[in-house]
């Protein structure tokens, strides 16, 4: 639901991003309404991941303001669930999917204390991603799609209102790409969570998309779907000819050439 009574999921006011003294992008002023599924697109090096890290409070804006769910972006915001790029790379074979999901909830807890709802939260998160069956296995033995489901469950276990994902479809085959996109679309409805995804290919998300944040010419913009998926814009964005096709089902597809 996109309600005007709720603060925007993401709001930038004159925000700029700097890394090592170099301006990555600037003049970011837009609002992403809550409840949608939004992709962040832009050419390589345009600062998509930097924008995500800014929403997470890991990179402060060099100027301007960044609000997330009505409050300034900050590290350790429990209302955000985060799925980093290449989630499985650093994990190795030493931990099970279930233990990883639990860490999404207990990982910030010092000491050995447990609370009674730890396991039921893990169960609920695993159910939400259809991951209960394989969660007892080590992450390294799971397929790419299964690993991504565990990563999403880990982000969900704290009941976030905003889910941020960085290239969640990287290294997945087409069937798994579609399954992860469908899962995210389902979570948006069943959990009422706003989904913001950094992608390099918009296509798999088009059927479910409510809007796009696009990094163009050094500035981030937001456009609701319909306005943004426009041949001229996408062509400009990627620097290569992009075609928009409307199918009988009303789906939009973009393709090269």
């Amino acid at each position: 639901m996109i309600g005007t009574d709720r603060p925007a999921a993401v709001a930038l006011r004159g925000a700029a991003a700097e890394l090592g003294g170099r301006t990555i992008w600037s003049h970011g002023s837009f609002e992403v309404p809550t409840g949608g599924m939004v992709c962040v697109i832009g050419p390589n090096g345009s600062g998509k991941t930097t924008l995500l890290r800014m929403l997470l409070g890991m990179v402060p804006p060099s100027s301007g303001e960044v609000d997330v769910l009505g409050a300034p972006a900050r590290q350790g915001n429990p209302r955000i669930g985060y799925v980093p790029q290449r989630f499985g790379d650093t994990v190795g074979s030493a931990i099970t999917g279930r233990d990883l999901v639990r860490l999404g909830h207990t990982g910030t807890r010092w000491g050995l204390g447990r609370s009674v709802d730890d396991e039921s939260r893990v169960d609920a998160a695993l159910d939400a991603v259809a991951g209960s069956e394989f969660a007892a296995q080590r992450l390294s033995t799971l397929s790419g799609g299964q690993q991504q489901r565990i990563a999403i469950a880990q982000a969900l276990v704290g009941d976030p209102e905003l889910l941020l994902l960085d290239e969640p479809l990287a290294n997945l085959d087409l069937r798994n790409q579609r399954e992860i996109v469908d899962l995210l679309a389902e979570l948006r409805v069943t959990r009422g969570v706003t989904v913001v995804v950094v992608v390099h290919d918009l296509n798999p998300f088009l059927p479910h998309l409510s809007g796009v944040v696009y990094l163009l010419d050094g500035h981030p913009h937001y456009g609701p779907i319909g306005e943004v998926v426009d041949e001229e814009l996408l062509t400009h964005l990627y620097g290569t000819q992009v075609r928009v096709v409307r199918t009988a089902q009303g789906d939009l597809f973009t393709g090269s050439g």
Partner: protein
Amino acid sequence: MLGATPLLADVGYQSNWVSILGEPFMRNAFIGGVLVALAGGLIGYFVVIREGEFAAHALGHIGFPGATGAVLLGLSPTLGLAVFCIGGALVIGALGQRAREQAVATGTILAFATGLGVLFASLASRSTSTLTNVLFGNLLAISAGQIAVFAGVTVLIAAVLAVVARPLTLASVNPEVAAAKGLPVRALSICFLVLMALATTMAVQVVGTLLLFALLVTPPATALRLTARPARVCGLATAIGLVSVVAGLVISVMFNLPPSFFIVSIATLIWAITTAVTR
């Protein structure tokens, strides 16, 4: 050839081994060995999930000039060992958070430290036994004072791990997520390295710089082949360390050979069998 001195020392079954086991120095050896196995089992899971094996190996070598240098200055080798290991841990921690970032710098420091250790050892002409003890360990020479230090250090490692266990696990397996959640990822990394330096300081005195891998890395790596549950890995790694130390000590007394050899051999045997079976 007639009159040639046999090269092989007098090796054989010691019929009085049971009575030797009752000696006070044996009691110290058992207690010291058990404490090291405990400390190694506790920290071992984190050594393996953080891919800190090479750092563990390097810390032992970095401690080497600490021990030989301390002897040169007339100080306690344990103290020198601890100072150099902890100093080394802080340097490695400052170099980077992930094992791969640290590898070249760690290896270079390792080589330099070993060279320094050789220099110090040669300057202190009368301390060849210290040199051998640091390189290969001497569990049978553990004193009551060292036992007290071991006990304190083991309790300290257990207490700190009890506090940081979950944040350290998350920071180890998902550093990006941990940072986003506001965990002090870098401080946790340094905390872990200092705990590992303390465990290394103990393990060097038992099995020596060159063999400590067998007590700090081999048991948890073996346990990880059997289970991926953190608590079980710690328990199993501790058990493997205990069996290696206790059985190694008993056999070494039976045949009057250095315990380090048997401790490392048993740990290696358990690892080899586990690896073969779980392949």
